[in-house]
């Protein structure tokens, strides 16, 4: 199934790209996806995840068409 991945701020620097269109197996979790993406790269201290503009935890099971974003703790305001 197809999903769309976005990276922001220091996570984008680590990944070396700001987005990716991926074709993944059904019902894998955000954590499983992340472990696959980060392999061989510097592991950030903390990563937050949003799916379709909502924060989710690492157990979230991905669905067809999800937009998944990985980013560090926010620092606005």
């Amino acid at each position, binding site marked *: 199934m197809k999903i769309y991945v976005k990276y922001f701020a220091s996570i984008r620097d680590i990944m070396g790209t700001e987005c990716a269109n991926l074709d993944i197996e059904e019902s894998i979790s955000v954590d499983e996806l992340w472990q696959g993406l980060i392999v061989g790269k510097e592991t950030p201290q903390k990563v937050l995840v949003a799916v379709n503009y909502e924060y989710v935890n690492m157990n979230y099971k991905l669905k067809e068409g999800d937009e998944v974003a990985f980013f560090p*703790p926010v620092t*606005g305001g």
Partner: protein
Amino acid sequence: MKIEILDEKFDPWQAIVEYKRNQLQNNSKIGASSVFLGTMRDFNDDEEVESMELEHYEGMTEKYLSNIVDAAIKKHKIIDGLVIHRIGVLKPTDPIVVVATWSEHRDNAFNATREIMESLKSDAPFWKKENTNKGFKWVKPSNELTENTNET
């Protein structure tokens, strides 16, 4: 309610006056206005900061800010609320964020503005990168560095 993300410098006071006049029609039930303005400082962790770049997650930012202001309006029974937040390149003293709320009595506006700022800082997807005399670096959240970041 107004949520605005701007990529150029803005005048927070003018924005407040115009919103109150045009959208709130200078509503004469308003007895209290509470405003918070965050501005860019020129130092951080003993380093001089020459400029700062703010990025955000377009779409998620607007959704979270709307939810935050909407929740504050209902919880604190305020008349209305506004948030304007900068993105892009900022110089010291530039406004970063302004939050304004309007209510009949002061307690409601004080609490609403405070809560909107705290929720914004913990949830809204913005990230600051500083250009210091030692190069670029991503700002760490203040709870990790206890008050040594360029955070309001």
